[in-house]
């Protein structure tokens, strides 16, 4: 099986709809099949990565800790769109710090999140084989 470049585009906020959690599950499944997986967070999708989520008051599963597992699944390219953050009054500091561990460099921690402009992200999209939109 040849490896394909899969891009999962997240444009929805978590909890209000099921899209965010569904996307995360599909990404984890896709990664288990050893594809070259990237994720992008644009529009309300950037809200998925906000720190400090606590769902105890709304009786729903808090899946924000699961994003930290993406590194274990070798999902190491997580693009966050700058314009979407700015429009919402957010900076990277408001988001979880996601890392992956490089086995070849004695498990050195490396940043997974890449802050990109809309134009830069469009270039990244152009280089993908398959796009999944949530």
């Amino acid at each position, binding site marked *: 099986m040849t490896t394909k470049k899969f891009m999962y585009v997240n444009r929805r906020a978590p909890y209000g709809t099921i899209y965010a959690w569904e996307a995360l599950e599909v990404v984890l499944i896709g990664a*288990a099949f*050893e594809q070259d997986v990237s994720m992008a967070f644009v529009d309300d999708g950037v809200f998925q990565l906000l720190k400090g989520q606590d769902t105890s008051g709304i009786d729903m*599963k808090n*899946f924000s*800790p*699961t994003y930290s*597992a993406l590194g274990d*699944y070798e999902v190491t390219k997580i693009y966050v769109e700058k314009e979407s953050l700015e429009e919402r009054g957010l900076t990277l500091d408001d988001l979880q710090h996601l890392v992956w561990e490089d086995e070849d460099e004695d498990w050195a921690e490396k940043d997974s999140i890449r802050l990109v402009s809309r134009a830069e992200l469009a270039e990244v999209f152009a280089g993908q084989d398959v796009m999944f939109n949530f």
Partner: protein
Amino acid sequence: MPIEVDGKVLETDEEGYLANINDWVPGVADVMSKEDDLELTDEHWDIINFLREYYEEYQIAPAVRVLTKAVGKKLGKDKGNSKYLYGLFPYGPGKQACRYAGLPKPTGCV
């Protein structure tokens, strides 16, 4: 099929996984392994406890590949391989060990 553990009846799904992860007590693994004719050793418990910690931290049951790698890092290279893990859990470390640990079936496990 519900199972009885320490005098309590616990709901399971059609594949035998606990319906509610919060129902889990160590006795769940004892009861489930007895049904599979498997005697749990300290090595089994290392993996079961590891899975519970993983779920606590990430809110998912890891895929076998991820489990293998993570076990290798935490418990040593000699244990971080599928031969070792399948030796302990012949029905598959993902499925069987997660079931004993009270976790849902690993995401992406069919």
